[in-house]
């Protein structure tokens, strides 16, 4: 992998001037991931409807210095596989040079991936197209105003899993998308975070260099939705890792490996929860027992990933 100085010299494919919020984890994720494609490789990006799309392609301006396509909300995976199929067909007829290398990547938020786009993603993975799919997971439908998705964490506030007199936020546990993707037995899948740029660029390089489908589930905090001030995105991402909220791991040809939390770095889940307004209600005396439940949940998932790595 290139060092940070070399990475800083790579021409950005998502350029400045876009309209994403300050501190938006999605834009950080996209920029770091596209660095993994290499400096000179031609890239085609497909983006699902969402913040990333509306904020980067307001007609007549585009923030993409690479070819870009947006189709709809639930079908970024299907759309990019159509592009990839075209590439193969045009190569076969010589309309594109046989040695021309193009990388294909789709970005969707958690709404466009865990929920409405899951079917299209599953189909695209099963069909074995050579592409990278990235879910930038900010844990809710942020573009439309922080509605809950199946990635929204347990007991989080969201505007469709409200905190009220009888319900203290979202009652349901979040979906384990990375394992669902792994069950497709694709060559490469990883869970990463914008809080660890080195790992993120590394797994992106692996994803791009893997023939066949590759998948990245990237934690991408959202200041607006998570209720924190915009300078804390990376800090909170790091806490997500240290508190087991977001384990960092990869599955390469069926082999699981994880970035274990060093004992001195390990923190209780409160340290993550207390940084964000979406969990503020959990710190009221009547809700404190819920934090113990969340701790048990993240412990269990961390142990599950660990057990998969031990296999």
């Amino acid at each position, binding site marked *: 992998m290139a060092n940070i100085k070399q990475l800083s010299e790579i021409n950005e494919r998502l350029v400045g001037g876009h309209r994403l919020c300050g501190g938006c984890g999605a834009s950080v994720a996209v920029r770091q991931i596209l660095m993994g494609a290499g400096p000179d490789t*031609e890239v*085609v990006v*497909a983006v699902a409807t969402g913040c990333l*799309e*509306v904020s980067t*392609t*307001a*007609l*007549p301006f*585009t923030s*993409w*210095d*690479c*070819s*870009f*396509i*947006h*189709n*709809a909300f*639930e*079908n970024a*995976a*299907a*759309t*990019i*596989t*159509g*592009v990839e*199929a*075209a*590439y*193969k*067909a*045009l190569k*076969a*007829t010589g*309309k*594109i040079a046989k040695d*021309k290398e*193009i990388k294909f990547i789709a970005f969707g938020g958690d709404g466009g991936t865990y929920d409405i786009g899951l*079917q*299209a993603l*599953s*189909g*695209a993975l*099963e*069909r074995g197209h050579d592409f990278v799919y990235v879910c930038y997971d900010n844990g809710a439908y942020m573009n439309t105003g922080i509605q809950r998705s199946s990635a929204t964490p347990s007991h989080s506030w969201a505007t469709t899993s409200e905190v009220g007199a009888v319900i203290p936020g979202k009652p349901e546990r979040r979906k384990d998308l990375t394992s669902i993707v792994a069950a497709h037995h694709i060559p490469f899948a990883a869970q990463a975070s914008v809080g660890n740029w080195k790992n993120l660029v590394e797994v992106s390089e692996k994803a791009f260099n893997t023939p066949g489908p590759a998948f990245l589930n990237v934690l991408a905090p959202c200041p607006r939705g998570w209720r924190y001030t915009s300078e804390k995105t990376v800090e909170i991402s790091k806490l997500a890792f240290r508190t087991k909220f977001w384990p960092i791991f990869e599955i390469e040809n069926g082999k699981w490996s994880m970035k274990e939390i060093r004992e001195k770095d390990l923190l209780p889940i409160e340290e993550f929860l207390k940084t964000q307004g979406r969990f503020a209600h959990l710190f009221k005396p009547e809700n404190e027992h819920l934090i113990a439940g969340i701790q048990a949940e993240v412990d269990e998932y961390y142990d599950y990933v660990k057990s998969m790595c031990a296999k």
Partner: protein
Amino acid sequence: MANVTVLGATGNQMVAEAFRQAKVDVLPAYPITPQTTMVENFAKYVADGRVHTEYVAVESEHSALSASIGASAAGARVATATAAQGLALMFEELYIASGMRLPIVMANANRALSAPINIHGDHSDVMSCRDCGWIVLFAETAQEAYDQTIISFPIAENPNVLLPVMTTLDGFVTTHAMERCELMDDDTVAAYVGDRVPENALIGGPKAVSHGMFSSLGGPYFKLKKVQREALENSKPYIQAEGDKWAAITGRKFEFVEKWECDDADYIMVIAGSSAGNARVVARELRAEGLKVGIARIRLYRPFPVAELVDILKDAKAVAVLDRSDCFGAQFGPIGLDVASALYSAGAQVPMRNYIYGLGGADVTLDALRQAFTELPQVASGELDQSLNYLGVR
């Protein structure tokens, strides 16, 4: 000189042949009755190495059209096929394909929409998508399905058109019945359709491009819709030109509306699709009996051939418009609405009665068609009103 193979074939076989001969680059498809044998036949061409096509066996019709959009934006020649619930599932993508001005040729095996679930032929599916900005063609026969599928490629890909085309044939009656067909040789078709020369393709072009961008309040959305309407309307001469060019090769004429004995007709039936054959049988009998009837058969449905139809119908004493689907809550079925507004806007005071027929594959009997024709003198005299009627419901 073109070589012609005469064969017995179904509509689905003939459409699959058209896709093969047009050298489609990408064909994303999901199987659904009565389209299934079309994509099965094509999959065999792929398996046998007879085509270079990337057959993308998607997990739904929504993804079929989504992938078609991606492939077309990438610069490939793209075809897909569907029917009924599949077309309904594609609904969102139909507007996106036309709004993004992407050439895609989609064959639709016209079939009833649920509920109750019914796999048989009618026009409920295609008519529910008539306002999606696609060029829409109706075939009567397997031969016509083949011809219209072939001309769809150069129409869609013409830089002055750049619109998706839905080439339709009636479920089972046309998709599955064996007919005498003429297959042109591969080289003739290849020379006729030529290569797609894409502009602003995602790949292979001189620069990076963005497709499917965002237009917020105050953006160009409104203006782009006007341009889109004009593009569809302006596609007519290009559609006719391709039909003429293909006719010069095959000897089979292409008209937006086929006129059958309309010139001296007092009473004219407007119809689309496979039932026109039965209508002609009845019309011949009635002419022998002294009733001067004609048939205006719609082949191009969108953009709607207003001028052509008005010209055919304006001097008739009464018109029967046959619809194989209904627009629930509206005054008439879809073709009924179109014909009524065409006549009204032309100031033509022609009495019109609308007949809904053959839904869910119900038999389109000669007796029922005779009823529609023979009611027209009473419609002309005012004894029968200009209403919507379900024809032959038992």
